[in-house]
């Protein structure tokens, strides 16, 4: 693997601070406010090493929160939570008895692993639900909970169509992946994507990522992995129900439910107006009826 030529500009062993615009070396992209950034998680490259989980917790100083064997394959994390912002799911599909798979598709097959994360939806239901403005869209087109604002109302939790946001029992605030907002501000690639040994998690400008993701799908199809498809890119499963595209999107080889992803999630806020209006209409109707029924004899 070629190293970015700019790496040669830093031959020293000791530094005084981070390498400027390090993400250009690690992710091939210079981070500029005003542009859209996200993750492309290619499950076919995932080896389930959980470097993303570890790097995320280490960077974001998140505590360990589950010290027990689940028995669910190698997944001892279970789900995304207030203190787990990357979660690798493991799905064993090798079959049993004589049905054990013998065909090994190129790249990941028969034991699926996927690093799940906040999707940073284009129309983010959590953000739209947040009544305080704690959840907001940053200058990098990512969705972040501002910890100095959040009052723990918890409404973003059920709003999320992917079960990502969670309230912390420790500090009473909502937490989720920030796409390393602080790192982006310093020109650094998000911790998980930087750590990912096999580039299963790729960070970049969303347009570039979508383009390379489509190329990857075509390449996999050409190699015989006809089941590969994108989840969360425009016009694909996941990018449904007015959510727009997902800034963190995925390449999958099995139906979304296998990875615990909804095939056609929706933007929660699109139910606000119909609900409110039909409720008001009912009340108005009943009020009109009341005017009649309550008419006094005076």
């Amino acid at each position, binding site marked *: *693997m*070629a*190293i*970015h*030529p700019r*790496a*040669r500009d*830093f*031959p*020293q*062993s*000791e530094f005084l601070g981070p390498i400027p615009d390090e993400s250009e070396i690690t992710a091939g992209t210079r981070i500029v406010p005003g542009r859209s950034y996200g993750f492309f998680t290619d499950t076919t*490259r995932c*080896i*389930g*090493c*959980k*470097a993303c*989980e*570890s790097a995320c*917790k*280490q960077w974001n100083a*998140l*505590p*360990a*929160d*589950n*010290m*027990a*064997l*689940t*028995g669910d*394959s*190698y997944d*001892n*994390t279970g789900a995304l939570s207030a203190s787990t912002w990357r979660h690798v799911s493991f799905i*064993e599909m*090798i*079959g*049993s*008895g004589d049905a*054990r798979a*013998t065909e*090994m598709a*190129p*790249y*990941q*097959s*028969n*034991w*699926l*692993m996927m690093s799940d994360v906040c999707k940073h939806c284009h129309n983010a239901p959590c953000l739209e639900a947040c009544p305080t403005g704690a959840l907001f869209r940053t200058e990098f087109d990512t969705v972040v909970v501002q910890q100095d604002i959040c009052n723990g109302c918890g409404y973003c939790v059920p709003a999320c169509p992917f079960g990502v946001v969670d309230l912390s029992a420790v500090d009473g605030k909502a937490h989720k992946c920030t796409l390393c907002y602080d790192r982006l501000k310093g020109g650094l690639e998000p911790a998980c994507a930087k750590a990912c*040994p*096999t*580039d299963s998690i790729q960070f970049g400008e969303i347009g570039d990522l979508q383009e390379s993701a489509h190329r990857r799908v075509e390449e996999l199809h050409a190699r015989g992995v006809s089941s590969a498809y994108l989840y969360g890119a425009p016009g694909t499963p996941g990018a449904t129900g007015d959510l727009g595209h997902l800034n963190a999107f995925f390449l999958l080889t099995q139906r979304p439910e296998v990875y615990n992803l909804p095939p056609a999630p929706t933007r929660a806020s699109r139910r606000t107006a119909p609900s409110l209006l039909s409720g008001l209409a009912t009340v108005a109707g009943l009020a009109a009826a009341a005017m009649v029924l309550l008419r006094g004899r005076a």
Partner: protein
Amino acid sequence: MGSNMAENHPIAFRHVLQAKDHGATIVHADPRFTRTSAMADIYAPVRAGSDIAFLGGVIRYILENDLWFRDYALNYTNIATIIEAGFKDAEADGLFSGWNDKTRSYKVDTWQYEGEEIPSSLSEHLPSTTPERREHAKRLSEAPPPSDLTLQHPNCVYQIMKRHYARYTPEMVERVTGCPRDVFVKVCEAWAKNSGRERTGVVCYAVGWTHHSTGVQMIRAAAIIQSLLGNVGRPGGGIISLRGHSTIQGSTDVPTLYDMLPSYLPQPNAHMPHATLADYLKAETTDTGWWHNLPKYMVSLLKAWYGEAATEANQYGYEWVPKIVGDHSMLPMTVAMRDGLIRGMYVLGQNPVIGGSNADMVQRALAKLEWLVVRDFMESDTASFWRNGRLVQKGELRSEDIGTEIFLLPSSLAGEKPGTYTNTHRLVQWHDKVVEAPGDSRSESWFVYHLARRLKAMHAESTQARDAPIQAITLDYHLEGEYDDPSADDILKEMNGWTVADRKQVADYKALKDDGSTACGVWTYSGVYPSEDHNASRSRVPDAPDGPGTHLGWAFAWPSNRRTLCNRASADPDGKPWSERKKLVWWDAGARKWIGRDVPDFSETTPPDYQPDYTKKPKGMEALDGRSPFIMIADGKAAVFAPSGLKDGPLPTHYEPVDSPVHNPLYAQQDNPVVKKWLRPDNRYHEIGDPRFPHVMTTYRVTEHQSGGGSTRGVPILAELQPEQFCEIPTELAAELDIGNTDWIVVSTLRGEVESKALVTDRLRPFEIDGKRVYQIGMPYHFGWQGFAVGDVANALTAVVADPNSSMHENKAFTCALRKGRVQPGDE
């Protein structure tokens, strides 16, 4: 094969995936379907311990179908060489000629080249592993190896190999390994295809091969295949040993090992003709090949150690170097401790009560010590065995009965001390000191240095001969910082070597002399600190994307910053690259020297058509022709047939693990005939197919933890990723025993009993071995009682038993019993 690379070396696997992107085929042969298997194009399930049967099958497939790379193998290996007429192959009995049933060892005369004696390339450079020699035999400096390039001679290596592996048919492979024959053949096809001028293939192995009583021969088998296919010394080729600890390669090169002095010089041995330095040099110096330089390295080492006290008159202090009297490796060390021979012990960043075989015996052994010094960053399982260890918890040991005086000294970690690691690719990489270690934490260098200073002071007045080496040993290092740390730069400089007269750093090992005028601690590392202010291990310049890709500016690879060993083989016999695509090093006819993208691994100016003039009795490199890339081997050729150096045969032969569920389907000989066993009441082995122990167990690591586990079990965010001990059990076996997922189970052997939760999985499968259904189960060995992620000690199940060549234990394949439930007090 023999490696779960994606799990245990994820970043190395990064490069595998990149190769995949460029069209490589990934094959994973393993008893378990692992995270590596999930990424493979072909997954070949093999029963643990049956690898030689599998690899032997591959060799047969290559030879029978004539798929080997003829231009390469004929020139660069000893495939055409003729072996002594008396050589008898391992037929049905499974034993080669020279077997002595009484001593249970081989005499290797008949394995030699016809009429010639071949010294071993291993650290004991004697031709035989027994000190006997064939005085009548010629030496390689007197005549070229006898060979038949037509390969018709019945005793040429090619014919011997063909006969030897004839029985390793795909059907036999399936019978022994359990791997379906069609899958096996697919592997053979894929492997053989990646050979020739345009293509190469690489084998990655790890302790899945070394942890066997036949481990060395497993790796040999891979070496034979790679040599036949022309996959050694070429880009994208080779046999990659994926090692397990940060500087485990360094601790082999700079050995804290009993049988070697730095850089593969043999430790003087009381049972070898090593009485004096002259004897030692005579016995160990090979006439031909690079090892002819051995005296320069040995004398320079002694000068580095004993400084001015090392003089020609006192054999440069040679007799102060302790002689070994047998196997002093970790396994017999355990036994010797248990038997009270060893009284004091230093444990330096290791956790033997978790990582050591027969872990209960290790604990009992530690309890017999008079004193024990443990240096670690936390209270490791080893440091706390007397307090809350497995045996104390079980009530089999009581604190008050343990008379060991124990010290736990906190140690500093990477980033808190400067120094180098040598990683798996021989890359010597410097790490900076950035912060001061907390409290009383100190480096190992500090500990040893200050201990030595105290001992020197205590012995300063002594006139006893035995104390002379303590007085003589040099400790000329600058002290740095608040705590008087010996300078790591100074130590590395000593390892690099200098000229004694003016203390000038030597540029590389070619500058070393055998007359006491140079001092050098580690000859292979010479060049890492070639001048006073140039520390090559600290260079941090990668190649540009359009550069050669060998990254010679990144750290230092020993020897001579060479990235690919034996890279003369990357050029054809005439010195031209095999192909444009696989170009690395080549002969520049104009400049009359070897050049290329890597540092050439050959005599710089020896042309490809060079032939030794045997009338002059050439020595060293002059005795090797221009087509001998394997310069560390006496004849310069890859030894597909190993005439010397191995205790268990010149060709890899399948023997069953010591604990095996079946009789060896290939030979009458069941297990390795020269295997090292320590049969005693606390270290019993299982009978063949013992019905009490029907299952095959393998131990392993997972991504989330490191070895004995302290460094990960003590880190909360890693501990939670694999929080408890578990045992992987195939679904079919679980159903038979009514074991549900996460139920408690007990695994037992004659060594011990271990409980854990069950992880019922389809990724493990039943094998049909020689007509018998055999279940493979597995358990990681990381867990112990200290830290955040705790669990029972898998190594309580394993036995002290070892490979005869390397003294490596056999923890990857043994038999066991399995039942539902938990360990009851008073069991066993």
